[in-house]
């Protein structure tokens, strides 16, 4: 089941579980150098206006999450990875939202790999929910900073997406900015 909401709208325990899940996925598993607060991975973009999608299994364990930010306020691509736009103007509009911290790793799944960040049915469900949620906020397009592996998920989901520019190699892995059309998918 995927639930959506801001920090204030989500039950406090669910918000804490998102932070702990992100710590486990992005810091512990993927080795990203991110700030940790009380065992939770939270950064400057986790604000009152940030929207979260969280998927939980039948036992209430988080097995997927994502975050949406409007681009007319500070967001990850604009503040941290502007070079991924390769000189093109950074999106800055209430029509364009950013999808970030997308993960669908089911740590309780038997036989699954903890590195399968984009490969599960949970990922598809989460992506569809994120697009639906963005559309409800008036978004026409999403932009996301991601490893190139997300393109396989986007193709699998049938979402119309294209690159905003060439990948940049970070720690040996290509990451890039990607446009996702909300209207075509919704």
């Amino acid at each position, binding site marked *: 089941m995927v639930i959506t909401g801001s920090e204030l709208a989500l039950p406090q325990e669910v918000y804490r579980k998102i932070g702990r899940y992100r710590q486990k996925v992005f810091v512990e598993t993927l080795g990203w150098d991110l700030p940790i607060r009380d065992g939770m991975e939270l950064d400057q973009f986790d604000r009152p206006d940030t929207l979260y999608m969280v998927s939980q299994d039948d036992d209430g364990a988080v097995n997927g999450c994502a975050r949406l930010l409007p681009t007319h306020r500070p967001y990850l691509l604009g503040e941290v990875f502007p070079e991924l736009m390769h000189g*093109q103007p950074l999106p800055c509009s209430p029509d364009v939202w950013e999808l970030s911290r997308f993960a669908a790793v089911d740590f309780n799944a038997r036989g699954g790999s903890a590195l399968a960040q984009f490969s599960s049915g949970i990922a598809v469900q989460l992506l569809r929910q994120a697009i639906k949620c963005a559309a409800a906020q008036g978004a026409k397009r999403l932009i996301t900073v991601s490893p190139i592996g997300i393109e396989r998920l986007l193709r699998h989901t049938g979402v119309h997406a294209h*690159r905003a520019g060439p990948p940049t190699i970070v720690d040996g*892995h290509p990451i890039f900015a990607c446009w996702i059309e909300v209207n075509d998918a919704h």
Partner: protein
Amino acid sequence: MPDTGYIYLTVDELCAGALVHLISGVDAQGTLATAPGAVATQITGYTEWVSAGGRLLTIGWDWQMTAAGDSVHLHRIGAPSSNLMLQSRARRDLGHIRTVELLKQYLDGFNWQPATLGHIAARYG
């Protein structure tokens, strides 16, 4: 470039340009498939290419490696990803689906395998 984020080219312009290898990799969960009696091993990965000129065209696609004896081959699998929108000679957009189909044809006539194999060998060898 308009804020669609696309690079707009005709097929002729695409063919006249040159692509430069950026990076290739083997999938962390690459499949290793051997049917009973077969000698072929299959590994999958990705390869990334960019335009040699000033316009930042990016194209990436997945590949599958097959090996039989001493011979290794790479084959494109699936659709390529890019920031390209192909246009007719009259400068009308051909659309996403047609662009992907034409890009597949272009890539299948493009000798990308040696650079990709060389990079893979250097990176993982």
